[in-house]
């Protein structure tokens, strides 16, 4: 029977292929988007660990997390280091790591911070930042780079780089002061891989002559070793990561920060901000999903329509089979088998297509947001979703099957 069904499909191969394309792509889309979303969420959620609060200028908490942790979007304001010092004095805060953003190097973000960054900042739940080569910065011109930066730009410990003013690869270069790579971090699968770390003092130094917003002075002839370190401590920073002595004090500390009178600042709980982000995106997601399922439904309808319209031209075929002793149930099951072949083939193709799509997306996502995607062929819940669709298709094709059943009952000889 299957052989006959297959031959039958082959005789109507063109409309069948069109229907299959619709089915395959709509199913693949559903699954791929699901996977990418899942992986993105997971990737984002574990990009930063060990940080209890992020201190930043008053504004959107989500934005703050996005630009500090993920280098997505740009900061719109600064906070003063004086405020940080004040807030840090709270005994409930164990450590504070200031960060300043703004410059870049060949498209990669430059983050200025203290060497303590590498001790306290973790990712993936509980993993610490480790060095593949070299060490954290200690000298003024030291720079630490993420693994992706080292790979893409082919840098090693000792490579010298100039930093660009501004956050894109086009901009005035601070070519009057060369930095040297002192360390390269091991890959983390997070945005850290695409970051370049410089000391607060080094960052401040290269901006010394920039008080009017442009490079007025060259540091080339200046003996920078003469400058006392304290003079190079920045007056403003973008944000600061805070670690508390006990997580139980989380709300207490964040409250006191949010109420700080001297400057408009915010304390954001990274996990909360991300959760808000996902819930915000969730409502857009629902709409998208509805559309996706609609497309799948339409594809199934297309398949049933194709079968239905094919029935008229197959009445002769049905008569012959009836005369040969086929029961109405035989004929109906032929229709169902054909549907099953088309749907199951579409499912298999969809699985392959999903793999392709996620593989393509993985590359993009790891570049854009430093997030890694899990690449498997298929998991259980995806398979059950696909099987549900196949079942729906079979149920839908019961309509033409029943019609065949009814019609064939009356067939016979005629003159």
């Amino acid at each position, binding site marked *: 029977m299957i052989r*006959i069904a297959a031959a039958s499909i082959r005789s109507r191969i063109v409309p069948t292929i069109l229907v299959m394309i619709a089915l395959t792509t709509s199913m693949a889309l559903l699954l791929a988007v699901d996977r990418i979303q899942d992986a993105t969420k997971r990737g984002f959620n574990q990009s930063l660990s060990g940080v209890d609060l992020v201190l930043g200028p008053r504004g959107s908490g989500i934005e703050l997390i996005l630009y500090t942790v993920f280098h997505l979007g740009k900061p719109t304001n600064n906070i003063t280091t004086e405020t940080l010092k004040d807030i840090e004095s709270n005994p409930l805060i164990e450590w504070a790591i200031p960060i300043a953003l703004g410059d870049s190097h060949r498209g990669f973000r430059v983050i200025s911070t203290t060497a303590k960054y590498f001790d306290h900042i973790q990712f993936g739940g509980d993993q610490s930042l480790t060095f593949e080569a070299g060490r954290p910065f200690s000298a003024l011109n030291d720079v630490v780079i993420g693994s992706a930066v080292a790979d893409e730009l082919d840098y090693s410990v000792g490579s010298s780089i100039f930093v660009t003013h501004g956050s894109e690869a086009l901009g005035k270069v601070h070519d009057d002061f060369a930095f040297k790579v002192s360390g390269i971090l091991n890959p983390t699968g997070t945005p850290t891989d695409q970051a370049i770390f410089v000391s607060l003092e080094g960052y401040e130094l290269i901006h010394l002559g920039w008080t009017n917003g442009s490079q007025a002075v060259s540091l080339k002839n200046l003996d920078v070793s003469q400058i006392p370190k304290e003079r190079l401590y920045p007056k403003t920073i973008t944000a600061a990561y805070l670690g508390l002595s006990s997580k139980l004090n989380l709300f207490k500390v964040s409250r006191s920060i949010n109420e700080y009178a001297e400057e408009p600042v915010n304390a954001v709980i990274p996990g909360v901000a991300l959760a808000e982000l996902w819930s915000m995106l969730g409502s857009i997601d629902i709409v998208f999903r509805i559309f996706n399922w609609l497309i799948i439904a339409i594809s199934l309808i297309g398949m049933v329509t194709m079968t239905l319209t094919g029935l008229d031209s197959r009445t*002769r075929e049905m008569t012959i089979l009836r*005369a*040969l002793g086929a029961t109405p149930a035989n004929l109906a099951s032929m229709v169902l088998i054909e549907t099953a072949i088309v749907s199951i083939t579409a499912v298999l193709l969809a699985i392959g297509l999903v793999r392709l799509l996620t593989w393509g997306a993985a590359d993009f996502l790891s570049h854009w947001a430093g997030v890694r995607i899990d690449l498997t062929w298929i998991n259980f819940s995806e398979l059950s979703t696909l099987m549900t669709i196949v079942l729906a298709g079979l149920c839908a094709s019961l309509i033409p099957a029943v019609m065949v059943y009814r019609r064939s*009952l009356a067939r*016979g*000889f005629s003159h």
Partner: protein
Amino acid sequence: MILKTSALAHTFKSGRHIQFPDFEVNAGEKIAVVGASGSGKSTLLNLITGVLPLQTGSIQLTEFTYHRLGARDLDTVRADHIGVIFQSLNLIPYLTALENAQLGLQFSTRRRSRVSDAQRVISELAIQLGLSADLLGQKPSELSIGQQQRVAAIRALIGKPELIIADEPTSALDPHATQLFMDQLSSSIDPETQAVIVVSHNPSIIPLFDRVISIGDDQ
């Protein structure tokens, strides 16, 4: 006894009523059923093949009595014991001649069990019917009418169902081809176990048959 009818009649929804003569067909017999167009030949065939439900009268095919059987059983009986050759469009266009011939076994376990090597049997039947074996791999569209009818005949004959029914099988053939086809068909059946009923409105083939049954006003 292969087929026996008694007091067969049918009333259509339109009110038209046809009465059929009683007849009996035994192994080895070749029966011609003649009648004008619209005289009820198709109805008779539909009744004999069990496609049309029996309203009144009785039909017995070998050991099976039709009115005692449900639709499902009738389908089985048809599959097992009857081979049909239509007037035209006998073959499924997307299957090869060989695959079409094999369809004769598709729905009958009984006939399947009698054929251990379908390909060989089909080749033998092809020779008997004067069909060249290398045509078996072709699709129906590549065969002539006469060749198509012969493939249909193989399909009807394979597995030796008791009753072969041919509905105007030669209406598209010229007189010489008609004669040839009927001869070949007749010599292909097993005189011990099989019989042939041919429906026709062509008087020239009558001499080939043992008996003639007339349907219609001129009964």
